[in-house]
């Protein structure tokens, strides 16, 4: 399946927004976490600054998000992971509210209660979780709802290669297969689960081979490339919309940053990331677009639009107020 020029431009701009959103967060995250303004003896304070707590960023993993979401509408559902920003952005979750949630502000998606691992947008039908493998069962339910309503809506569930060894993976694929649910299971193989390599954790070289155990199609995308993702996911989404059931796709992708910010990555070969960055998917798509006739000026305009969107979002987040303390005991129940 070949993306249209418009789709390619959309993917390019989304990748720029994601990359900029993540790399800008690298610095914002450090605010208030370094000496001398933290407890004596500490090198870093995870609880300090405007964006405290764990932070899992997806720089390098843009292709899987944009190549997939190019096929989705607001009627389709996504369940994401603990590393959710790239999916959320590509799905169209409002950037301002997302950034505000990460800053713990009342204007955030969850009024500041969820934080970056718990982004929920009812409008965009997006959710995620900090628990590995937890999105897959819920995706089956969303797909079941679509079928019961007689809609051709699909649900995409993303998970890491580490999550592919969690029991929920097996149970969800089997359930989706026997019930022919419109779910597309997409595994992001970024080679690591924190410090544990794919080889140390996984008995198969290709998680897509596990589709055999459920009698469904399984395809691996070997390159961290948005067009290849677009092609393979397109088939799976079309199949799901036709009511022919789930598919399992694994996409090889690259984690440019630490598992979470503050991760020293002692377990990782020194120059690995450097080499990965030399074959960056955004640069490649840019080249393809310009070979296809995109002018320097047009490209620069896209770039600045992306930058402006990210800057606006973080400004909105900073300037928004915190929720009133009285909200702490609200929303346990509706």
């Amino acid at each position, binding site marked *: 399946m070949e993306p249209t020029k418009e789709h390619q431009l959309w993917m390019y701009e989304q990748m720029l927004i994601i990359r900029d959103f993540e790399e800008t967060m690298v610095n914002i995250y450090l605010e208030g976490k370094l000496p001398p303004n933290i407890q004596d003896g500490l090198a870093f304070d995870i609880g300090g600054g405007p964006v405290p707590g764990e932070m899992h960023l997806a720089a390098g993993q843009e292709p899987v998000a944009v190549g997939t979401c190019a096929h989705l509408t607001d009627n389709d*559902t996504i*369940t994401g992971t603990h590393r959710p920003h790239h999916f959320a952005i590509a799905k169209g979750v409002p950037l301002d509210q997302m950034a505000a949630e990460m800053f713990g502000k009342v204007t*955030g*998606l*969850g*009024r*500041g*209660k*969820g934080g970056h691992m*718990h982004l*929920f*947008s*009812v409008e965009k*039908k997006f*959710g995620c*979780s900090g*628990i590995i493998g*937890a999105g*897959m*069962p*819920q*995706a*089956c*339910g*969303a*797909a*079941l*709802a*679509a079928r*019961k*309503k007689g809609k051709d809506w699909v*649900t995409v569930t993303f998970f890491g290669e580490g999550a592919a060894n969690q*029991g*929920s993976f097996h*149970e*969800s694929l*089997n*359930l989706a297969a*026997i019930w022919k649910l419109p779910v597309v299971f997409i595994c992001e193989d970024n080679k690591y689960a924190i410090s544990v390599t794919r080889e140390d954790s996984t008995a198969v070289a290709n998680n897509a081979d596990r589709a055999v155990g459920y009698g469904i199609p399984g395809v691996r995308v070997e390159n961290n490339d948005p067009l290849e993702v677009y092609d393979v996911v397109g088939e799976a989404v079309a199949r799901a919309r036709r009511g022919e059931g789930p598919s399992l796709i694994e996409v090889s992708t690259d984690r440019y940053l630490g598992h979470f910010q503050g991760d020293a990555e002692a377990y990782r070969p020194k120059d690995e990331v450097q080499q990965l960055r030399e074959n960056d998917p955004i640069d490649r798509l840019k080249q393809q677009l310009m070979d296809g006739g995109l002018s320097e000026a047009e490209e620069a305009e896209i770039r600045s639009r992306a930058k402006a969107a990210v800057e606006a979002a973080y400004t909105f987040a900073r300037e928004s107020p915190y929720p009133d303390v009285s909200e702490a005991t*609200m*929303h*346990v*129940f*509706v």
Partner: protein
Amino acid sequence: MSNRELTMAAAISEAIGQEMTRDENVFVMGEDVAKYGGIFGATGGLLDQFGPERVMDTPISETAFIGAATGAAAEGLRPVVELMFVDFFGVCMDQIYNHMAKNTYMSGGNVNLPVVLTTAIGGGYNDAAQHSQCLYSLFAHTPGLKIVVPSNAYDAKGLMVSAIRDDNPVMYFFHKGIMGLPWMAYYTGSTNEVPEESYAIPFGKAHVVREGSDVTIVTLSQMVHKSVLAAEALAQDGISAEIIDLRTLVPLDKEAVLQSVRKTGRLLVADEDYLSFGLSGEIAAIVAENLDTVNLHGPVKRLAVPDVPIPYTRPLEEAIIPQVGHIESTVRSMMS
């Protein structure tokens, strides 16, 4: 047709069926809920009435199908999903307590999840350590779940109607020994008059099963019936016991407990869950926190399973699950 008696199992399935008729978004899934009608009859007859699209047998994949209930509820459906025995919660607890229970709060109230999770509890028929537990205290301890524990058919129907109409996750615990099954001995008081028309019993309102002046017995589920039998025996000797059936643990009717204990001055908690770090402790604590307005004639007493797994063999199981005799003798000891 009035004064119609139903078993608790029949009352539950009738309530679910009436809600399914009323709202097409309500559907049922779980292991053996369709063809079999539920191992404990809670979904009996629903497959014939509503067909396989709305009454779905599942694989033995609790994480997948209970998680699916959450996902379907987020899209506006109203699943009634069965966990065959509460003892099995360990294979799917993450989907229950970290997602079904928390997604509403984590989304700042934007996501609402109208799920009813039904499950069987209780011992007394020698099914041993992995099929006889109550465990409702665990779910009451973790925030985000409403906890319903009916003791009789009338309450069971009204509470199920409220559960299905509630826009929040509700866990609904039915004790096997009061379902009125044709294959398990049960306390007949649990089978009672149930109106055919639908009615809702609000959560958070305990029921005074029996009024009394000497001692308050706070209890729930099957233990309500054991308490009634004990109270009748005690009445012979002029000991007047008041029995409070909590009906729901979340929300918990603290006022009903305090009001009664203020009157009687004595509290016995009769519970079939494990003793420590659970329901009986919470009820005792509520009184301890209000000793400025409650005047006790003696220490609070608790009867529960003494922190041991449920043994298989009859003499041991009878010894560790509080029985009518234990309740009776404990109250007597409180009076002297």
